């Protein structure tokens, strides 16, 4: 395996997704080609309804494309059976959602350890690692709290800890700051950036939060189900500068 940190962790080839709503056909994605390099912090920007979330689901192997191919670590996702898909979702990818999606009836600790239980870890291992992860996101003393007893920012931090549980190569974040206030949102972005720098995790984030631009290595602009343009950080500064 090439491990110089520059191979493609995710590659999309001519990905098309059509939703059927009664008589109507909605083409959410109209042929997306995209290669995401290992270790980069990539933001997918675009207005709502542009196909961002659909693209997110494709990258995360949460939905099947109507046509085209999705490769994760150069493995064609459509060729995987249910067991392999579950393994991929469990070990390779960590998911973070706009609505946090913590299991409401479980404590922070139970939420964080769940992916490790699914991965078949022993109790001692997952309890220890769960505590470490909660410490990492600064919520160690709240491990016994359930999501309704935590603030939005705290819930999202638990979700980040959960996403890191099995040391995934990719963290997929769908509007991670969408339900948070400005300061908390910045905190979460900072945490993601730190993770990407310290652990070399590839972070892919669908967003329309401009704050995300400053920390991204690359930004993919989606418009109307197609890749509008891809910008590197250097070019970005100029664009942001112009806007500002």
């Amino acid at each position, binding site marked *: 395996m090439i491990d110089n940190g520059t191979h493609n962790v995710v590659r999309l080839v001519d990905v098309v997704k059509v939703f059927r709503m009664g008589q109507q056909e909605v083409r959410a994605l109209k042929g997306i080609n995209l290669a995401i390099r290992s270790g980069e912090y990539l933001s997918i920007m675009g207005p709502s309804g542009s196909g961002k979330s659909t693209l997110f689901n494709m990258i995360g192997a*949460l939905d099947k494309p109507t046509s085209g191919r999705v490769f994760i670590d150069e*493995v064609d996702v459509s060729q995987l059976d249910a067991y*392999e898909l579950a393994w991929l*979702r*469990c070990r390779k990818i960590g998911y973070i*959602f706009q609505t946090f*999606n913590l*299991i409401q009836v*479980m404590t922070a600790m139970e939420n964080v350890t769940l992916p490790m239980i*699914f991965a078949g870890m022993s109790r001692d291992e997952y309890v220890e690692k769960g505590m470490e992860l909660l410490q990492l996101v600064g919520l160690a003393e709240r491990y016994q709290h359930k999501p309704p007893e935590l603030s939005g920012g705290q819930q999202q931090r638990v979700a980040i800890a959960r996403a890191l549980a099995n040391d995934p190569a990719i963290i997929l974040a769908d509007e991670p700051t969408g339900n948070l206030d400005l300061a908390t949102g910045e905190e979460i972005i900072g945490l993601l950036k730190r993770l990407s720098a310290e652990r070399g995790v590839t972070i892919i984030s669908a967003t329309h939060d401009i704050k995300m631009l400053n920390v991204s290595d690359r930004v993919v602009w989606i418009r109307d189900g197609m890749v509008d343009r891809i910008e590197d950080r250097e070019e970005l500064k100029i664009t942001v500068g112009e806007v500002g």
Partner: protein
Amino acid sequence: MKPAVERQVVLPWTQVVRISFNALRARLFRSLITTATLVLAGAFVAYTFAGYAILNGLWPHAPAELKEKILSSGYESFAGSFGSTPKDRWLIALSLLVCTVGIVNAQLMAVTERFREIGTLKCLGALDSFVIKLFVLEAAYQGLLGGALGSLLGVMVSTGTLFIKFGTGVLRHWPVGHLAWIVCWNTGLAMVLSFTGVLYPAWVAARMEPALALRTEQ
């Protein structure tokens, strides 16, 4: 070289039992409503059969006037023993049918309420079989609890009404063994009903694509 993608392990039953038990405990009130359906159906079945069992226990020891009283209050004896009439069996079959439909309804609601949770579980690496096991186990606990409570309730009500009608002889010749047997098979029956009722909802839940489950508004 290790293959890029391996196969997800199947979670051992002990873990599934633990997770499903905690899930049920956390949603106690919601699940008690489903359980109530089973309690009522179970109580009705147990009431009917316990009544005949108690009369059978009492009959050989009953003085002539009590026998007279039992027969005149509408119980029919077939060759000196009491048993369910076709009408009883019809009522029981109907009540069980209504109960099962009620459970399917309640469990479909429960699945809908938990769409997002199921989607999240699948994102975290849950297999379809885990989702099915989760729902089936929760249903089994509900069946066990509902069946046991319903059976005891039925036996108690049956004993109480017969005691009022026919006096202390009912208690003196209370057929413990026979009644215990009724409680046992009736609890088993409730578990079977609960299991039957949850199969379709569990299947619906397990087959969902995670993306679809996550899209639903909470």
